[in-house]
């Protein structure tokens, strides 16, 4: 299958994640959505490097994606703790609607 279809699947994941990030209120789902968006971006990054047949695999996008995975797990850990702190404070793992006016 051509590398374009993998890249398009990556775009699909990005948009799916974006949609879920907007419509779901629960923070855990928002965090999942961000992670899936990140996977989509990685897929685009690596898949497009394989356009045009069996050239040598390009290691630069590979290294970038490994970096991206580590950044994603760091951000996820921080987001989860923030979510728990917020839930402990407000009793709900969603963002409060009202602004602090």
């Amino acid at each position, binding site marked *: 299958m051509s590398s374009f279809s993998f890249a398009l699947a990556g775009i699909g994941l990005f948009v799916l994640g974006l949609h879920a990030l907007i419509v779901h209120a629960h923070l855990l789902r928002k965090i999942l959505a961000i992670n899936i968006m990140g996977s989509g971006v990685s897929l685009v990054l690596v898949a497009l490097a394989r356009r045009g047949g069996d050239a040598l695999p390009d290691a630069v996008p590979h290294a970038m994606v490994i970096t991206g995975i580590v950044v994603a797990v760091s951000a996820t850990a921080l987001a989860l703790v*923030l979510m728990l702190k917020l839930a402990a404070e407000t009793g709900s793992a969603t963002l409060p609607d009202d602004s602090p006016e």
Partner: protein
Amino acid sequence: MLQAVIADSHWAIILILLPLAAAVLCFLYARAANIIGVMTLSALVLSVAALGWQIRETGVYHHAIGGWEAPLGIGLYADGLSLLMLTITAVAGLGISIYATSYFKQQDAARFWPLWLLLLASLNALYLSADIFNLYITLELVGLAAVALAALTGGRDALAGAMRYLLATLLGSLAYLLGVALLYHGFGSVDIAILATQAEPVPVLWVAFGLMGAGLALKMALVPLHFWLPATHASAAAPVSALLSALVIKGAFYILLRLWLEIFAPHSGGAETLLGLLGSAAVIWGSLQALRQTRLKLLIAYSTVAQLGYLFIAFPLSTMAGAAVWSAAGYLALSHALAKAAMFLAAGNLMRFGGHDRIADLDRVVQRLPLTAGAFALAGVSIIGLPPSGGFVGKWLLLEAALTQGRWELVVVIILGSLLAAAYVFKVLGRAFTQAPVCQKARAVPARMEWAALLLACGAILLGFLAPFILPLMDIGDPFSASGVQP
């Protein structure tokens, strides 16, 4: 001898490695955090000065990391624009740091310093990077550190603000990264200078710019993506609010500006008109929102939304008069950083003093906290853009460009924004003179906190006189012309 040492040393690298090392040190020896922090900031101010001298004497600084030239390796790059941003960071950072030594209790200082030093290192790395993927990592570092700082006070509002900010900043980074992916696969490099030469007006360039622009605009809270900013900036601790408003937002703006100048401007396809429109909307909407706030910190936060709009008004004007307009925007960014930091620190003093930041109950702070009130007033002068402040220089240059180009709608926006700014600044100052119906109890404010705010505000005013010296420095390496970055 001394000159040779300054000319040959790697000041730019010191600006990155020193705060990283200091952050680790603060993390390990929390007790000495205040001392380590302030010493680091002082050393950074000196290093920035040395870097400025270096690039003025020997031209732009370029360093191929690992000895690998682009496209294989990553380059560090410093010209007048980088220097401007580094200076903003170091100077405003030092003022806020001195304030923080009094503001935080020992226990909180141990939590504040490692995060702030990491934020500082990542901002410096951001301003020095010549590689769009490396910029992504610095963006993530800046974002995560800023979120952690915003959550520092705990409590419902701060945590909700930090969470909202985290989601916004992560989304922004991902959009930016997707843009990086498209640029890499479109033009075969992540080095800005190479991209500048390779870029052609093809669809992938526009899609990439759309993604990166949207992601960075989200991080900068450009209207209509500003939903997260007011609550986050208003609910953080005072020094953190100052850092977020004065420094963090500028990082995203710098990347957008750099990419625009080097890669996108020649193939913009009218994007500058859209950015100008959004900027104008931000000026009007942010100012109106600021005017109707009842809490001081929210007012200042909305003022940030408005003042950022001015930076975007420069985009449509730059097509006719590039360098002059960008110098104006740079000057506005510089004076806004100092003035806004001073305002948030002053607000922190008022909160420490009265235990609240309700504007209606400020209760004669002019007599009771004259230095703080003075700091707020002077910072306000620069935010409004009255002479002789730095804000005046920036807005005047912008207005001049709009007038000569006959862009009357932008002239109206610039002036209207200033009038509205005057309205919300005087709304606060007016309350500061009058007596509140109920007499408030007050706590003492350490002198250091008052002086830090006042000195930053004075700096914003002083910039008005320094313009003849600073404006030429911004032009080192010709960052605002079509091809600034040389490979």
